């Protein structure tokens, strides 16, 4: 069985698994990292959203064989580590606005929100309503309005 190595939340991990197993299942079923959630398996609901080298992506749609040893994978569990504080400003904003209800989609919402703010900053502009309209993460509890408010407030502290 092939061996795969990559950096997960700041630590190098190695796992024996077939190449085409999607990374979501390597994280959850083999490495026991359960922050990313299953909601569809076809890259639509974004509940598994995590970061690869600082960009948001969906591990349900990526073969573990396509991950390189130098790739830095960050899940919700590793987000604080990327800023060196107990909570990332986006997580703190989520708490301040009591965004979560069931919480199942929120790890993915937060990881997408961080990337969305970074994307706007990279283009030298503030995050807009149009940006928020394009966030595809599904929240079946309908917490969307508090998500928008939390992103806007966190953007100022990122």
């Amino acid at each position, binding site marked *: 069985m092939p061996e795969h190595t990559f950096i997960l939340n700041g630590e190098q991990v190695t796992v024996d698994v077939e190449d085409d197993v999607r990374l979501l299942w390597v994280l959850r079923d083999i490495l026991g990292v359960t922050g990313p959630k299953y909601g569809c398996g076809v890259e639509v609901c974004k509940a598994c959203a995590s970061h690869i080298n600082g960009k948001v992506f969906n591990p349900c749609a990526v073969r573990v064989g396509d991950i390189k040893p130098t790739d830095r994978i960050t899940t919700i569990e590793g987000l604080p580590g990327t800023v060196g504080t107990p909570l990332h400003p986006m997580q703190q904003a989520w708490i301040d606005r009591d965004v979560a209800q069931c919480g199942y989609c929120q790890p993915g919402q937060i990881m997408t929100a961080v990337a969305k703010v970074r994307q706007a900053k990279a283009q030298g502009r503030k995050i807009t309503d149009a940006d928020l309209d394009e*966030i595809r993460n599904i929240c079946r509890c309908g917490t969307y309005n508090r998500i928008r408010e939390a992103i806007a407030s966190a953007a100022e502290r990122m």
Partner: protein
Amino acid sequence: MADQRRSPQGLDRRRFLGYVLAAPTLVAAAQLGGPAPEASAAIPTLPQPADLFDLNDLLTTAALPSSGLVAVQVHTDGTASFALPRAEVGQGVTTSTAMLIAEELDLPVDRIKVTLADSRPELLFNQLTAASNTTISTYTPIRVAAAVARGRLLAAAAIVLGDTVTNLTSRLGVITGLGGKSVTYGELATRAASTRVEQVSVTLKPRSEFTVIGTSHNRVDALAAVTGRKVFAMDLKIPDALPTMVCRPPTINGTVRSVLNAETVRRMPGITDVITISTGVAVRGRTFGQCVDAVRALRVDWGKGTVEGASDASVLRELKAAQLPLVVPPLPLLAKTLDAEFTFAFRSNSALETNCAIADVRRDRAEIWGSLKSPIVAQQAIAAKIGLPQSAVRVHVTEGGGSFGRKLFFDAALEAAEISRKLGKPVKLMWHRTDDFRQGRTHPMCTSRIRATYAAGNVLTFEQRHTSVSTDFGHGLGEIITGLAAKLPVGDLTFSETVFTLTQTMPYNFGVTTQLLNEVERGFNTGSMRNIYSPDVCCARELFVDQLAKNMGKDPYRFRQEFLRDHRARAVLVKVAKVGNWGRAMPAGTAQGIAIHTEYKGFAAALVEIDCRPATVNRRIPSARTGPRVTKVVFAVDAGLAVNPRGLQAQMMGGISDGIALALTSSLHLKDGYFLEGSWDNYFYTRQWNVPKDLEIIVMPPTTGQPGGAGEFGVAASYAAVACAYTRATGSLPTTFPVNHDDPLGFDPLPTVPPIPQSPTNGLGNAF
């Protein structure tokens, strides 16, 4: 051991005996005595059953005999814990329960650990999470339990401090005597414990002294949710409970005749087992990804389903044939008559967490983990299925990733138990998203016919005939006896009609009013979806009220104000009309809508603004279902007493999101005995691009002083207000909901064989 801290004896309703059961006060009766409507609605509507005794009273009364069997425990570390016999699925009951205990125990909310109780059959009907009834039925018993604990602590403190209870005050977990000496709850915990059961008398705090109940609190599980540490069923690490999925039939409830390649599939990478079960062919393996591969590789000879060949059109024909007759004949001479009929498509109450459960079945015992709103009947049904006594089956209730009614049933737990017994191995069973839409439970298709007669500015009669595909209430009141009763051929209709009668009321003085339900066609997997019958019944009624107002030359808001029967209903209506600036000038193609709904011991009103102009309707977002956009919602809710206003606002926000979806975009299309929708880009629940940017949710000040229901209360009024706004914006009355159901299909349906799609591999290309 009465303690004197409380003000002198006020209303005696606050004195309770520990373990004595407080009967639900018939607050409904008191409301009827409110001031008579001052408007021209001269022909009153008589109180309906639900005005006197509603579904909440039924569930609370049924839970009464065992409602005292709850206990608050105080620990030596100064914290308190409580195992809540209900399911937390996002509606916030672990937070509101911690607040009830904090209030009576005088301990900060963050030192109160509320967990979810395992299935406890001795609770009989007191472990069902339904009808937004948790806080209504537990408000008194939980506070009594907390007060009993506090009384014990005070008694123990009196001894330790050498003082009398009357001189003691407790605040935030510390008891202080007159001399200033103090002792903490933690230090008293052991001494305060009792070696025998005692009955004690307690007095609950008067509302005037509340410092926790009624003030907004953040969720107790907020930190766990945002850090990924909140544990859902599939996150549990149960030894050897390997990922498991089921290859399901192409049509609803199809059967397995034979498996053609079980051996080959058993040898696929990571796969440990392949076995036929009653609902399909189960595969077990090292990862869910490899289970998907195995399910897709299986070649199965399938038997017919339970609704073979059925389609939206065929089911609609059956519904129309089963509509109960309208009895009031059109009276052209004496009065005018208005008729309307609406059709509501099948919808999915699929949560983001699909059906899932863990089962570890051994020869002599079994353990089950899952998010279950009716754990007792789950335990009993599983025990029956695997041939073990009820006492040999332990059911652990996990926190749920949403429910919307779906987790009233235990479909995955039953399957997991069957698989685990047949394999003799633990299994972590998860439904695929496509399974959840195509084989999972749905809100049944239904129609609503209304006829009213009116003359001289008054409505004389109002008849509503609601006809639905059979709604499965097979969970009963949460245990096997009522569960079985609700499955019997006659029993199911009785159960449905009881729920309908105890939830549907007529908020307006429309003279002689009858609202009746009939149900047909039992082959579908159905169940209650958030707010059950009310969204469709309310949507039909409020659209009809707008038509009546137009025919009688009246403004929709003024018309409602005149005809509403209850002053609390008028209060929420007036509030949204004022805050939402009803009647303001609106550009063509946009409009306001207003609607009212009463249920769960409360009253709710919604004012909605919608934009149906082409530029908005046709706005482009990649593979998104945009269409008309609700731009503003003002929602007012009077829940009698909001235990946690911020939590109540969250539930209304969720209900509004549901209402927008029900009116505009989300439905299942039935064809050839199966549902075409197979994933979230086929089933269009509300997304960020449909969300109203202007949202205001107003929690009205307390009225009855008793908490009403919250979890489902946001759906009906918002759904109806969106439908009314849409009708006024487009100038035409839609008669099918959601309004896009009969548009050309917005997606290419996934095949039914294999039953689930493969995961893509291009994810890196979409990173940003």
